[in-house]
């Protein structure tokens, strides 16, 4: 049974739009509540937009859709479907709407579980305004994540990496963040209706997330009519997937490097967000493209290198021209309008920006493979043409790739960067971490402290993990460390890399956790890989390649707290650098501009 996350989420949403009744009652009862109004907030708008288009909304009887913050007018005798996050402001809004009697009946759906106190606030508020009879149903939807493709999801937690690695972060803040991440992961697992076996490396946020998630699942399984009622209580390891949690510091280079394949390039350069792309056209307006699985060119060529993509575009254009000519010949009709297709518009922009990126991508992959780079080449690239952000990323990649660098080279690199007017905070941050690692090698203990030590431990472990990550250079066949680790975990054979990984099994009874742990290490057919701190399309694509190559083909879902482009990630590093007080003050014209 292949887990198709996007499909399951879409089904849940459609069910919600039909007022949580069974979909597809043919003919049957004249359902009085056919025409509804949908109200959502910004987060839920992001959830809905990659999955459902406006035309499909009409198919399910939704006539209007509004943001909850907008001033709305009463529309009588119509039921309203609310899809919101369970926050106090949203509850206040609902109470206000109910007191104004905007709609006939209110069906409330919260994207994750609404806590008791908020529920009581809602009840008190509506009781005070004597409008409680308008609220007909309250549901927890467990849908608090954004699914971009069949096997790719994101929790849309902004600046997660910064918050987790912030040296000045207190325990409480880190706890909150971990709670949010665990909440999102719980929603994903509830939608998939599986209870996986959890594995994570020692230390760091991944372990915290894993233990809290394990606890949450255990508590939930104890309640009756829980959400995971599927196949017996002793499912073998063949049917349960494995959930692998990773830290961003595990492999820092992937988030920064320039990749030259089509999908990562569009994401990086043109700013693909929620499967939608806004580009400037020649006439000066903005045009918006939708790039998801309904676009056959995108799905077929997403993983190709860019020059090959250009060839494919030529081939498709020629085919299209031929088809148009044939149709014209047959019908003898008037000249069909041959305006540029979406492909042409897209790739023209890419080609303009792509000329220099090619160099960066090549040099970076060379660096990772060889473990070093000729000094002159490096300085040449830094002084040459290219955007500031690109140069900064290149320099950071250089730092990460080589083990020990003589300080003179670092000096040279820094001067080159400063000449190019680049804000070097991110560079300084990575340098500091690398240097601290040398002195903190001994503090890399894997002890499980209590809650008080979290912040300090987190900081130390993150540095330790960065060292380990720096050693994860790319092997010759360009495979990422993440892919190799997930592969090893799915195989389940003893492997020195992963033996130190912890294992959590929420279904196993607590007492026998030590002994029966070995049972659940068998080979897994399905996996969910989750990266704490930010991920991107490169990792997603490499995981998909991995599973397609295997016989029989396995299945991997990739998720992350946030999908970041290289630039955005480097900005987060720069933010951390500035918080630590490093780095030069950026010159006034300093922000990157394309």
């Amino acid at each position, binding site marked *: 049974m292949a887990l198709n996350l996007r499909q*399951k989420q879409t*089904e*849940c949403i459609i*069910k*919600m739009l039909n007022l*949580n009744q069974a979909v597809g009652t043919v*003919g049957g009862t*004249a359902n*009085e509540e*056919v*025409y509804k*109004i949908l109200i959502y907030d910004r987060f839920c708008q992001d959830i809905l937009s990659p999955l459902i288009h406006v035309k499909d909304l*009409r198919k399910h*009887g939704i*006539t*209007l859709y509004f943001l909850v913050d*907008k*001033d*709305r*007018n*009463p*529309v*009588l*005798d*119509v039921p309203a479907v609310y899809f919101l996050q369970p926050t106090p402001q949203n509850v206040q809004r609902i109470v206000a709407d109910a007191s104004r009697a905007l709609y*006939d*009946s209110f069906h409330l*759906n919260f994207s994750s*579980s*609404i806590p*008791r106190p908020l*529920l*009581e606030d*809602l*009840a*008190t508020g*509506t*009781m*005070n305004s004597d409008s*409680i*009879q308008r*609220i*007909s*149903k*309250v*549901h*927890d*939807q*467990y849908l608090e994540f954004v699914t971009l493709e069949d096997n790719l999801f994101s929790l849309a937690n902004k600046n997660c990496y910064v918050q987790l690695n912030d040296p000045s972060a207190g325990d409480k803040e880190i706890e909150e963040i971990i709670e949010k991440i665990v909440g999102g992961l719980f929603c994903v697992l*509830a*939608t998939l*209706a599986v209870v996986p076996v959890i594995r994570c490396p020692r230390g760091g946020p991944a372990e915290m997330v894993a233990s809290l998630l394990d606890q949450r699942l255990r508590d939930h399984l104890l309640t009756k009519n829980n*959400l995971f009622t599927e196949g017996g209580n002793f499912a073998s390891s063949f049917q349960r997937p494995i959930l692998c949690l990773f830290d961003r510091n595990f492999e820092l280079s992937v988030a920064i490097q320039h990749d030259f394949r089509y999908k990562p390039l569009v994401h990086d350069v043109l700013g693909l967000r929620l499967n939608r792309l806004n580009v400037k056209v020649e006439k000066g307006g903005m045009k918006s493209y939708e790039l998801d699985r309904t676009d056959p060119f995108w799905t077929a060529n997403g993983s190709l290198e860019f020059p090959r993509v250009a060839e494919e575009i030529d081939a498709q254009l020629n085919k299209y021209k031929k088809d148009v000519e044939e149709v014209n010949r047959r019908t003898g009709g008037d000249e069909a309008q041959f305006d540029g297709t979406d492909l042409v518009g897209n790739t023209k922009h890419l080609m303009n920006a792509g000329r220099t990126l090619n160099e960066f991508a090549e040099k970076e992959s060379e660096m990772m493979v060889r473990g070093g780079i000729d000094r002159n080449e490096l300085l040449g690239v830094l002084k040459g043409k290219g955007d500031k952000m690109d140069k900064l990323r290149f320099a950071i990649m250089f730092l990460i790739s080589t083990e020990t660098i003589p300080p003179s080279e670092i000096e040279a690199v820094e001067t080159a960067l400063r000449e190019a007017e680049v804000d070097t905070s991110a560079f300084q941050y990575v340098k500091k971490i690398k240097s601290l690692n040398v002195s903190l090698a001994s503090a890399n203990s894997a002890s499980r402290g209590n809650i008080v030590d979290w912040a300090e431990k987190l900081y130390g472990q993150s540095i330790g993990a960065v060292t380990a990550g720096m050693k994860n250079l790319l092997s010759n066949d360009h495979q990422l460390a993440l892919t190799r680790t997930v592969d090893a975990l799915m195989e389940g054979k003893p492997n020195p890399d992963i033996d130190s990984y912890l294992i959590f099994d929420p279904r196993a009874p607590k007492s026998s956790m030590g002994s029966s742990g070995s049972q659940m290490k068998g080979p897994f057919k399905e996996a969910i890989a989750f990266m704490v701190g930010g991920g991107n399309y490169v990792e997603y694509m490499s995981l998909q390649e991995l599973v397609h190559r295997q016989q029989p083909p396995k299945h991997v879902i990739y998720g992350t707290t946030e999908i970041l482009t290289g630039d955005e990630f480097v900005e987060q590093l720069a933010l951390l650098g500035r918080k630590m007080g490093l780095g030069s003050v950026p010159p006034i014209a300093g922000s990157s501009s394309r």
Partner: protein
Amino acid sequence: MTKARDRTEDFKDAARRAALNLGYDESKIAAIMASFIMHKSLERSMFTKAALTTLESIRALEQFLSKHKKDYVDVHRITEKERDSIEHEVTVFIKACKEQIDVLKNSINDEEENSKGWLGIRSDSSNADTIAHKHGVVLILSEKLHSVTSQFDQLRAVRFRDAINRVTPRRKVKQKGPTVAESSTSGNIESREVSNSETRQTEDGQAEPIRFQQRHLDDETHALQVELGTMLDAVQDTETKMVEMSALNHLMSTHVLQQAQQIEFLYEQAVEATNNVVLGNKELSQAIQRNSSSRTFLLLFLSVLTFSVLFLDWYS
């Protein structure tokens, strides 16, 4: 697949606790709890009632179509007359539904104009959101009707394709038929001529009646030819008529599609109107502010001038 957890029970508990906290008495609490179980439905507006009846009729049409679909498509099940009657019923029904949708659409516009009242102030029940909602309802109805009519058009296209295929082989057979008949008659004539020439040698006395028979046969052949020619023309006529009819059928669904597109346009405008209302309110409040501030400034200016004039007058 009950992925979502129903929290209505929790909500009811919370409501009861809130009621106790607020100090409601028992009867009130009981009333509130009862209202949860039996949801009191509000009086539906005329518009919604009409929309629901239209929806019912479209659903009935869909059921009718699905019931008779198998009979209609399969060649041997029912006669042509029954097919024609089905078509006629469906066409009438589609027209009726289309008229109902038009009535609904016009009623939105009329209500808009009528409720403007004097001073152009809209009454409460027809604000921008409600109007957009009504347009949306009408749009959904017409889209549904369009999908049903396109289904029906497909069935009709299948029927006509079968009919045309049936006609053309018959025409070929008929063409072969007359040629065979002609060749057989000419064969007969030849054989008769041969036999005539043979018998002429034998019996010259019977030449007269034989020639009469020949002429009779000629007339017969000629009549046959004429008849076959007319039949050919009639068949060609039917063929063209059927092609015309199938073209007209397509028009039926395109008309509904046009209607749907018009309604969609109105709907988009109505939704934009809801946004514009908000923007308009903002602009109005800004204008009011500016108005009042400019008024104060003007007053200040005039008073300062007056006092300065008085002062100068007093001074000099």
